[in-house]
């Protein structure tokens, strides 16, 4: 199935939780969805026989410019039917909250921990959301565009990049 058809079906099923379809400006046609219902949609996409999206290729956080919303992108693939779909969700910078898909695709466990670690996005329903690449007591979310590192970390000065 093409991404257009999948989007149409999702739209029909989830109504206004599916916000828009992005075809321009991306090589992978993307469906923008509401953050709190991502998990339900991913489950639907996985279990439905017409879709069978059993492989979550990639899950990434994104911060476009340091002021607007944070986003999370999901690249899905079906090993049986060999088709693709991409989902994207936007969430507020002040209190980023997205439903976790870690119980549906186990690979999301670590990918969501990484997004939390580097962007501070909270994934609700994640079994064990803690930092993965940085130390547990690191302050701040480095990949955000407005990230300013602290002065010291455990007594060591953090050098400023010129």
């Amino acid at each position: 199935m093409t991404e257009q058809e999948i989007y149409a079906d999702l739209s029909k099923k989830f109504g206004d939780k599916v916000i828009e379809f992005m075809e321009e400006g991306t090589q992978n046609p993307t469906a923008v969805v509401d953050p709190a219902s991502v998990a339900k949609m991913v489950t639907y996409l996985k279990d439905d026989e017409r879709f069978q999206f059993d492989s979550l290729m990639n899950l990434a956080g994104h911060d476009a410019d340091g002021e607007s919303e944070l986003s999370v992108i999901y690249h899905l693939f079906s090993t049986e039917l060999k088709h693709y779909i991409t989902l994207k969700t936007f969430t507020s910078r002040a209190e980023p909250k997205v439903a976790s898909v870690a119980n549906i695709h186990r690979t999301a466990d670590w990918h969501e921990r990484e997004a939390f670690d580097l962007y501070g996005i909270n994934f609700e329903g994640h079994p064990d959301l803690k930092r993965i690449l940085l130390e547990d007591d690191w302050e701040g979310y480095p990949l955000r565009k407005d990230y300013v590192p602290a002065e010291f970390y455990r007594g060591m000065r953090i050098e400023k990049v010129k």
Partner: protein
Amino acid sequence: MGRLHAEEMVLNMGPQHPSTHGVLRLKLRTDGEIVSHIEPVIGYLHRSFEKHAENLEYQMITPFTGRCDYLAAMGSEHGYAMAVEKMMGIELPERVEYLRVIFAELQRIASHLVAVGAFGLDVGAITPFIYCFRERELILDLFEMASGARLLYNYIWIGGLAHDVPPGFVEKTYEFLDNFDKRVAEYNQILTGNKIFIERAADIGVMTPEVALTYGVTGPSLRGSGVNIDIRRTEPYSIYDRFDFDVPLGQGLQGTIGDSWDRYYVRVLEMTESAKIVRQALDQLPVEGDVKSAIPRRIRPPKGEIYFRSENPRGELGYYIVSNGKNVPVRLKMRSPAFSNLSVINEIGQGWMISDVIAILGSLDIVLGEIDR
């Protein structure tokens, strides 16, 4: 007498350890020798590659990609170059495509040699490791001829290659290929069929296809479980559709499908297949062609995003690039195969002994450089 209070022991296979293939920490909860829970702790090699990429121009990022997966640098550079070229719609000359395939497949052979040798080392067979590195030296000589470096190349640039291959390269590669199949037969003699090795690897750490798919395992580890997904076949990129090669799958020849022996054997067979591809590419290599002709003067991909994946020796290497029209990417995420491959170790490692956990880790073939980036 009260009940015997037997506690679980928490054992730390620390970041410094001969067998964890890099700086990886494994927290093992064991009951005697049997492991009940494995928690990998990563991040010791985190060098903020993705943050750096947001401040570097596209062509300056190429050497950084090699340093993430340092055992398959050609593969990393290739995937990145193809992702940016797809965003910009660049057409490559035939010679460039053929040379890139040759280097990618030679890199696959070199990476699998390390994987096979290191796996033997983990279970105690020291000699095959040295034999594998003897072949790898020959491949590194070829890479040095072409790019000037043995391990980290900065050779596959966006739109072409850094330099053309010197005269004598094609002959030397043919020479290498002529001897290679005999060597693989040697490895099969000394390691693959060895009874003790089979006892250490067969039926250990069985990964069913469902577990593999849901944990995002890709590459030889996935194909060892019998799942026929190879991105060179599912989504052919570059010119892979012109070559005739098989995709080896695990068949449970010595134990169950999806055990460590299968993952190991898939890698051994893939080496022969890659040698086949290199030979075909050398035969079809166009003599004419300027490898730098398609390199754009300014690399400014149009506004948009892309997720492009390629088949690295470890699995599916994906690049998610977001561009806003400038010469510096807004976001560059490297979806590294070893990151997901490592996450499965708790699922398949539970209930085995410590020695087996080491064997399972060796069969997954991870490189901490690309896990931590």
